[in-house]
């Protein structure tokens, strides 16, 4: 029971209510008891004191039995108390029923009256076989107590009334408890039911139903949870779509070189008589195989990044020399489609701790991308600006640009945008990961149809003598 929210809620509300009800009941019972008994005592006392005062004032000098007689004869017919006149020994001279008795009454109230005070007593009377309340007041003659005037009433009706009221209070308390129980059941249901609904929906989502939607009924925590579940489901479906896209892209990318290799292979199988054709075919096969290897390596690389298995081997390097090398390499190559690279690099070195090969991979990727998306005979600009202990390296092209809606998703793995260009869509994701591991970040600004600027922001090392020897020899270019 305690394992469910409903059980806990019931138990806690029940306990709280029970405590409140119990405390209130006790207070009520005490108040009722006090009220009834104090009022009764006051009533009886005022009667006793009034009667005794009258007798003391107007019958001074009379004997006790004369006064007893007078009191008996002048009792109010409606007098509800038993009235007794007692002598100093506590013997009943006469009671309101006309009887006298030699039995001695020696309750504390009588004793108090014999001492000259007004006494009251509540207790069980053996004589009446019931509980009584008695108030005694002294009868005084010339300053001397000569007897006691005692008024007594049965307290049984008081006890019954108090018990009745307490009974009512307990019944009401029980009703309140029941009501509270019912209410907490309802409250529990209102809390638990949406959670159950969400659970069912999330299970559905887990089985791959991306159309499932949690209904947001209230603007509360549960509503928020429903919303984030929906969001999660949307994201799941997007990545699912991205994955599918990737698979088809990769299959396509893999198939193109394979088709070419297969074609050339069949051609060559047909005969090797034309040496020129044979050489061309073998070259193409080799190139396409290289391309396939590059693709597979990219995938391997990326999965390593994902698994966190890539370690940076950071050593002090000069970023500036790396950029210069790249500038030279790309401008000499006159690489493809007549695109030119202009560089604008600072003259001083840009020292930092880095894995130079990885950084090179990043810039090569950026430059390749820029070339890929540039128009024929376009221009790419590579600039580096130092600000304090950061360097901003920008690769700028005047290519087709990236639509605004794609801009956010650029750099996510497998995302290729709406471009028809070939590629795994992993390059920028890997670059981002490498830059992140160097403590930097990549920002992309782009205007569709105008061009794109990708800026790599890297932290620099505090100025230290640059170790030229640490510079690594060029690695083979990375192709994407």
């Amino acid at each position, binding site marked *: 029971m305690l394992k469910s929210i409903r059980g806990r809620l019931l138990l806690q509300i029940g306990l709280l209510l029970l405590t409140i009800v119990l405390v209130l009941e006790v207070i009520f019972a005490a108040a009722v008891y006090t*009220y*009834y*008994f104090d009022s*009764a005592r006051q*009533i009886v006392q005022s009667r006793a004191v009034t009667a005794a005062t009258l007798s003391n004032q107007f019958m001074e000098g009379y*004997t006790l*039995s*004369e006064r*007893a*007689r007078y009191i*008996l*004869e*002048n*009792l109010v017919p409606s007098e*509800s*108390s*038993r009235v007794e006149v007692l002598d100093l020994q506590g013997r009943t*001279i*006469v009671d*309101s*029923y*006309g*009887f*006298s*008795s030699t*039995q001695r*009454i*020696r309750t504390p109230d009588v*004793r108090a009256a014999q*001492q*000259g005070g007004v006494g009251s*007593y509540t*207790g*069980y*009377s*053996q*004589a*009446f076989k*019931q509980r*009584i309340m008695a108030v005694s007041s*002294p009868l*005084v003659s*010339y300053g001397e*107590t000569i007897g006691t005037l005692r008024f*007594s*009433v049965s307290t049984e*009706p*008081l006890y019954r*009334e108090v018990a*009745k*009221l307490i009974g*009512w209070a307990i*019944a*009401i308390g029980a*009703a*309140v408890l*029941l*009501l509270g129980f*019912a209410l907490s059941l*309802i409250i529990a249901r209102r809390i638990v039911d949406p959670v159950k609904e969400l659970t069912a929906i999330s299970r559905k989502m887990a089985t791959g139903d991306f159309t499932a939607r949690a209904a947001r009924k209230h603007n509360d925590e549960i509503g928020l949870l429903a919303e984030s579940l929906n969001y999660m489901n949307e994201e799941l479906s997007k990545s699912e779509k991205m994955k599918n896209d990737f698979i088809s892209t990769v299959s396509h990318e893999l198939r193109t070189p394979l088709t070419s290799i297969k074609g050339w292979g069949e051609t060559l199988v047909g005969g090797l008589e034309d040496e020129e054709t044979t050489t061309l075919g073998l070259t193409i096969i080799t190139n396409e195989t290289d391309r396939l290897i590059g693709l597979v390596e990219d995938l391997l690389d990326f999965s390593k990044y994902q698994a966190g298995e890539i370690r940076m081997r950071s050593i002090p390097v000069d970023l500036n020399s790396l950029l210069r090398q790249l500038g030279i390499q790309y401008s000499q190559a006159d690489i493809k489609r007549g695109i030119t690279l202009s560089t604008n690099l600072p003259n001083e070195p840009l020292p930092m701790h880095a894995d130079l090969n990885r950084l090179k991979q990043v810039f090569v990727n950026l430059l390749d991308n820029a070339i890929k998306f540039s128009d024929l005979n376009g221009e790419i600009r590579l600039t580096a600006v130092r600000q304090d202990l950061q360097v901003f390296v920008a690769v700028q092209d005047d290519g087709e640009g990236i639509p605004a809606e794609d801009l956010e998703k650029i750099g996510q793995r497998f995302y290729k945008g709406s471009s028809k260009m070939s590629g795994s869509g992993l390059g920028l994701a890997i670059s981002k990961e490498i830059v992140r591991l160097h403590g930097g970040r990549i920002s992309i600004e782009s205007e569709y149809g105008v061009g794109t600027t990708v800026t790599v922001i890297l932290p620099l090392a505090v100025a230290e003598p640059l170790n030229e020897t640490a510079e690594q020899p060029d690695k083979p270019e990375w192709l994407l």
Partner: protein
Amino acid sequence: MHAIKIAVLLLILLTVSGCGQIASPGDLLHAPNLAGEEQSLYRSVQPFLPSGYQLTTPDQSDQGSAIRLADLNGDGEKELIVSYKKPDIDYEVNVLILSRQNGSWQKADLITGSGTNLDYLGIKPLIHSSSAELLLGYEGGGYGLPKELYIYSFANQKAVELLHRSYDQIAVGDLAGNGLNQIAIALPAAEPNDSPSQIEVLGEKSGKLAVLAERRTEGDVLNLQIERASEQRIGLFAQVLGTKRSGYTVLLAWENGRLGNVLSLPQSIYDKRSSRQNLKLDEPDYNPDLAVTEQKWWIDYPANNRDIDNDGITEVALPNPLPNTDEPTAQPQTWSDSYYRWDGNREMTFVEDRFWQWGYELRIPDRWLGHYRIELPKADDTTVSEVLFVYSPHEDPEGGSSALLLTLRQLSMEEWNRLRPLLENQQNEYVVLGSTGPAAPGSSSEVTVALLPDTDNNLTGAEAAEYEKLRLTADEVREMVGADTDEEEEANHNVEKH
């Protein structure tokens, strides 16, 4: 949602129905039901009381109830005797006799007497031990007016008047020791301004009520009582306040068929009364005129003869001077009431000595007798704020040493509240003897305390040892002032004795 509605409805119902039945405390009060028989008797009397009439009780009685159950006619069935009157009518008192017929109470007879009140109501066997006569004494109203005694016998559902006598005081009891009751009355004075000076004893003689004996005196007769006077004997106690000396007490008892005054005390023995030893009596005095002999139990004031030691025998009081310190003129004479019990023969046995003056009351411990004196502060106020009991081993109060035994003091509540912390600080023992409410509005209430002395004194040797023996403990003081320690225990039990 249905459940909530039902619960709310239930709650409202509960509350409303509960509140509607709440009774106020005043409405709930009623007298506790009477125990058994009394209850049914009271109920059965109610139909016979005319409206406006109330039960009334006699001033004196062998039993003070307004409703009595007694067998008047000796048939073995008890009759109900009910006295009632109308409070605003001053000349009519009714006594109703109900007899039980066919299982219910029926009115047998109604005796309407003229008088303001019932002075006496007795149901006593006067002529036959099997039946009882109804004795009714009516008060005429006004001081000095005679009261009227009517004696009825009840037979055949009718009350028949046997005797009518005027009287001033009445006492009833088995004086002759024959199983019947005799009536002693002090006759009213012949002249309204005189005092009653004649005692008559009425009783059965040859099957009829007649005067059995008479005693005349020269003074006022007071405090007529017929009580047990010794273990075996019943006597008629009376006090005569005369003109010659202050007065004397008589104890009339039946001796050899005659009524004799037992308290025939020779002067020589009377003079030794301050020793508080047993007193030897002479032959009883049978003379119908009490004034003849001088051998009397002389009293300086009418101290109450009463059963001082609760043994069922009434002791005779003898006012007895207490040893004072100074010359008698310097301070008021202090008295104790010495109580003596008749041995049934020729000796009065000393029972106890009780100091009873100015509102103080102390039984003087037997072991103090002869070893103490009383000292009063020098003041001529009417009230004495302090009484000292002093140990004095020497006859001459001026010579030799003395030590305080006990101090009785009266003081106002305010003074007492100041004194008490002082006493408690010094660890002095005290006993609060009682307090009275304000005697008059505006005056403060009074407290009487007994202060026990501290141990400092200038006594040495045998005197110191004797003094130590005389000293009282606080418990003894409580006993001596009549504060009942048993009652305190009962109070703790909260059990009502009824």
